[in-house]
């Protein structure tokens, strides 16, 4: 489902956010700090702060529909839509991934010329632990890079 390139992209310095909805079709948002594509390349596990995860638990269990946006400071971005599979607390490996992710993201943002006084507090100041790992199956992938092809389904 998920291409090699996209896997690398998702594993790189990217901003991520997870959208869910409740039984009344009210959407909910949570930001994501780090994610990994599972070896099957069908499922993806993203790390969400615990408090946030609690808020969206209901949605996951009610309908399980998720929409994950993954975007680079370069504005290249994708939206992966799918279905909730499972949830578990993060382990040390996940934390390590998270910390690498945070560092890389800060570095890239600074590279892009964004001011340090914003970049560092914004990325490094975002609470990322305690967190949970939410796994979901990717069913659709859309191009989300702004431009003429935005919204195009690519998988």
């Amino acid at each position, binding site marked *: 489902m998920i291409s090699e390139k996209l896997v690398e992209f998702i594993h790189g310095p990217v901003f991520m956010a997870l959208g869910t909805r409740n039984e009344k079709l009210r959407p909910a948002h949570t930001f994501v700090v780090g994610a990994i594509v599972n070896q099957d390349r069908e499922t993806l596990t993203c790390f969400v702060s615990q408090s946030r995860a609690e808020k969206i638990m209901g949605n996951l269990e009610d309908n399980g529909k998720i929409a994950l946006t993954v975007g680079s*400071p370069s504005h290249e971005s994708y939206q992966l839509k799918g279905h909730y599979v499972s949830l578990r607390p993060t382990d040390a490996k996940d934390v390590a991934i998270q910390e690498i992710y945070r560092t890389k993201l800060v570095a890239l943002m600074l590279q892009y010329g*964004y001011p340090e006084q914003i970049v560092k507090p914004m990325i490094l100041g975002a609470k990322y632990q305690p967190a949970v790992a939410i796994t979901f199956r990717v069913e659709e992938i859309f191009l989300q890079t702004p431009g*003429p*092809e935005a919204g195009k389904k690519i998988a």
Partner: protein
Amino acid sequence: MDIREQIAENERLIEQLNRELAKKSIEVRIIQQLSSEINSTLDLARILQLILDSMDRVLGFQHCMILLKDESEEKLRVFASRGYDQEGVGAEVRFGEGVIGVVAKRKKMLRLGNIRSSMNYLMAVRAKMEEAGQLQSAYAPVNLPGLPNAHSQLAIPLLVKDRFIGVLAVESPKPNAFDELDEILLNILANQVAIAIDNARMYQMEEGRRKELDEANTKLVQLNESLEQMVKERTAQLERAHAELSTAFERLGEQATELAAFNRTLEQRVAEQLAELERVSRLKRFFSPQLAQLIVAGGTEDPLKTHRREVTVVFLDLRGFTAFAETSEPEEVMGVLGEYHAQMGKLILTHEGTLERFTGDGMMIFFNDPVPVPNPAERAIRMAVEMRERVAELVAKWKKRGYDLRLGVGIAQGYATIGAIGFEGRWDYGAIGTVTNLAARLCGEAKPDQILISQRLLGMVEELVEAEPVGDLSLKGFLKPVSTFNVIRLRG
């Protein structure tokens, strides 16, 4: 949140509040300070710099500029700036270009705090569009004055009574550097700035106008002076002309008077001349034209004035004329007379005789009056002889026509009374005396072709003529018979 976080939070809040408070109190100070500074000078450049300096020192706007609208085109020019390496004064911004250009175009304030990130985003979109071939031209960066890496910008239009005159703009490399409070501050500033600029410009304009006025005034004064000069000259000209005209008028008046006088004398002269001509023409009846002129010219005494003189009188007529006249056609008679008179007349003139009268074929001529001549008797004789010869020629001609006419002449010398004879309207010049009678009687007695003269006369012209006696004739009016002679020819 733990205590530390709380404290940090509070610190931040307090800081924020302080900032706001500070700004508010500064607000009032700024306006006062700036107002007094601005209004104390009307030098536009100085004003603009003052404003920008204050904005930095007092309000912390480290990078700011003032742009003013071009007079005719839709563009602005940087008139003053502060906080830039290159002052950038004079740099242009077209309406619609960048934050400043868009503010100018829409005449509305704009505050952006995310310029770089927005641009990044848009550039990415642009790149994609270029890839997709949706864009015609490649990106050409617009050269705008200001910070190359500005992240925040706040620009406000400068308006004077809705009239757009320029833009006041502040910049920062920091994102979201300006907030609503800054908007309010800048709004207040902008009003002041706009008014100050407008005043300064008006003052400049006024200055300019005053200069223009001064120049115009100077020119006017000069013009006035030269005008006065011209007027003086013109007046002088006119006076001269007037004087000339007056003189001319006087002259004309004089001339008119002269003319009038001349006219009068002319009339007089004409009258005189007319009278003269009348006399001449009157006298011409009797005298040759020369004689008439002479008399009129005063060369001799007025002949019409009665006087006595010794004259030689000649009477002549044509023998057989009466019978001829009775038996001939009037035209023939007049023709003969005409010929006869013409020839006789010529001779009278030639010999300067005076024709006293003629009655048909008879004529009376005398000599020595009105003009005295040295030899009247001689003249009379010569004339008579020539007459006889001339008539003989005519007689020859007449004979061919069947006329029988022949000349007879009588000549006498003696005193006669001469003058005007007649009555009003019909004065004639005439001679009366024995001498005229004698001449007439002798003529009556003359046979064809005879020229009869008395012995007394013969005595006077003896050497001149050859004469034959014809006897003593008894003439009417004469007591004794007159010894008479016929002139045969002239001697020599």
